[in-house]
């Protein structure tokens, strides 16, 4: 039953997405199991770790073997398209949010340092919105997801080359209290 509802939601939202400018490609994957192996780190080879120590044994948010411990979606230059490779990761988070009714989430968009600072803030916000849209399509309750942006203000990599820029074109999923 639950699957059917999710299925209908996905179908509805996917229809809405077709004319959307964000180009986020959504498919009906609601019957698929959350994958653990398909999420890829960017070519810089870095990994994102939760910011708080693992207090409770078996917390999937901090278990490195859980897809929920992966929090970052990386973007191409000037793009807010959520690539296919992140679908498994976002599906896992969407399910977790749907199951944990009290859980509030923030998606934080970031850009590289090039371009106007204020416009970059809005670009980072659109990246966060794109990730939120995919997650809500996959079943997460959008009213518990706030999207914000740091623009180019909080670069994860302090460099000034393509490798650094790639690392900084990113949206991070952060759970309340983290």
């Amino acid at each position, binding site marked *: 039953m639950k699957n059917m509802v999710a299925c209908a939601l996905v179908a509805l939202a996917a229809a809405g997405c077709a004319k959307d*400018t964000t180009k986020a490609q959504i498919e009906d994957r609601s019957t698929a199991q959350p994958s653990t192996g398909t999420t890829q780190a960017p070519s810089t080879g870095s990994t994102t770790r939760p910011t708080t120590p693992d207090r409770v044994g078996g917390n999937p948010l901090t278990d490195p073997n859980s897809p929920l411990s992966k929090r970052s979606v990386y973007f191409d230059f000037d793009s807010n398209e959520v690539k296919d490779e992140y679908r498994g990761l976002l599906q896992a988070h969407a399910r977790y949010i749907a199951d944990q009714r009290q859980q509030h989430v*923030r998606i934080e968009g970031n850009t590289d*340092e*090039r*371009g*106007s*600072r*204020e*416009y970059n*803030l*809005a*670009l980072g*916000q*659109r990246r966060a*919105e794109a990730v939120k849209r995919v997650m809500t399509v996959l079943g997460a309750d959008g009213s518990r997801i*706030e*999207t*914000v*942006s*740091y*623009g180019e*203000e*909080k670069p994860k990599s*302090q460099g*000034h080359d393509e490798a650094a820029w790639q690392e900084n074109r990113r949206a991070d999923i952060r759970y309340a209290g983290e």
Partner: protein
Amino acid sequence: MKRSFLFLAALLLALAARAQLSIDLTTSGGRQIPIAIAPLAGESAQAQSVSGVVGADLSRTGLFRLVPANVSPIPTEPSEVNFADWAGKSADALVIGRLEPQPDGRIEVRFRLFDVTKQSQLASYTYLVTTAQLRATAHRIADVIYEKLTGDKGAFSTKIAYVAKRGTRYELQVADADGFNPQSVFASNEPIMSPAWSPDGSRLAYVSFDQKKPIVMVQNLAQGTTHAVAAFRGNNSAPAWAPDGRSLAVALSKDGLTQIYRIPATGGTAAERLTNSSGIDTQPAYSPDGQWIAFTSDRGGSPQIYKMPASGGAAQRLTFEGSYNVGPRFSPDGRFIVYVQRDGGRYRIVSQELSTNQVQVLTDGSFDDSPSYAPNGKMILYEAQAGGRGQLAAVSGDGRVRQRLTSAAGDIQDPAWGPMPTN
């Protein structure tokens, strides 16, 4: 105590470095007014060289050429001026004066401005000031000279605001227009963005990330009081004051993508939505008459500049050259806008005359951002990035004179030039 001393020492070092490196001036074409500024009698006893500050102010505009005042004795009274001396040095204008300490500890500053060719006095002013006011007095003298010789109001007695980043520390600073006397008005370990002066100069709006997301704050500079004026769900950014100082246009993402809203300058929960597009609308700027708002929008596929009535409504696209034109600011006379244009991989400041749509590239940097007009419209302050570090830079409105105000310490971001002083 030790810490504050260290901080002071660091600040002084930074200032000394700035003072030494401050000018990297490029001028091209155009006639400069040759002016001789004689050292004022008695100024060598003061910490501040009044004539030095006046000379630096004037030469920074690119409109003046300083003629060495190497005569002996140096005149301080009109009767001591031998116009033939100065005509022989090709000086068109001459400044003389004196400082006289008063019994109450204050100083009387007198200066006179002469037209060398006509051998006539153009201005004579006397100020009674404290030693702490000597630098401000020098700026006022430069304002008088600038207005007498160019016909335009000087902007040397104005303030600028900018964000200085040192390591992970952000400071919102207010300084004199020449970068001296920087004062920190707000500091945080989270980013600070987009300072914007209220039209009367009494308040600064800016974006603070203290609440772990961007929120628009307004700070009363004299009282030091601060309150949040836009703290809606999502992002709150890009504040721009309406010319009457009663409301602000801001960019909010409370309804999804970033759009432009109008809010009372006192804050509250009422936000009137002014744009309604399927793209990003941000970076609003009011025209000086308050009738229009120019802003950045990528509703057409690439970020371009549009204008709409200040109350919202149909928008008209203003920029057509290139695929990235963002961050407009109106000139004080409303005839031009300046903005950031991407050309290849470079971001530069350009100006556009609104009546002809003629575009002129003003700067030659790689990552230039945040243009801000001087209140007399003659110079544009902007951020020039080099080596990942922002520096203050200024360019004349016609692009003829460019300078970098390089400072040794910190990363300077988002400069904003304040209004003319009200007194």
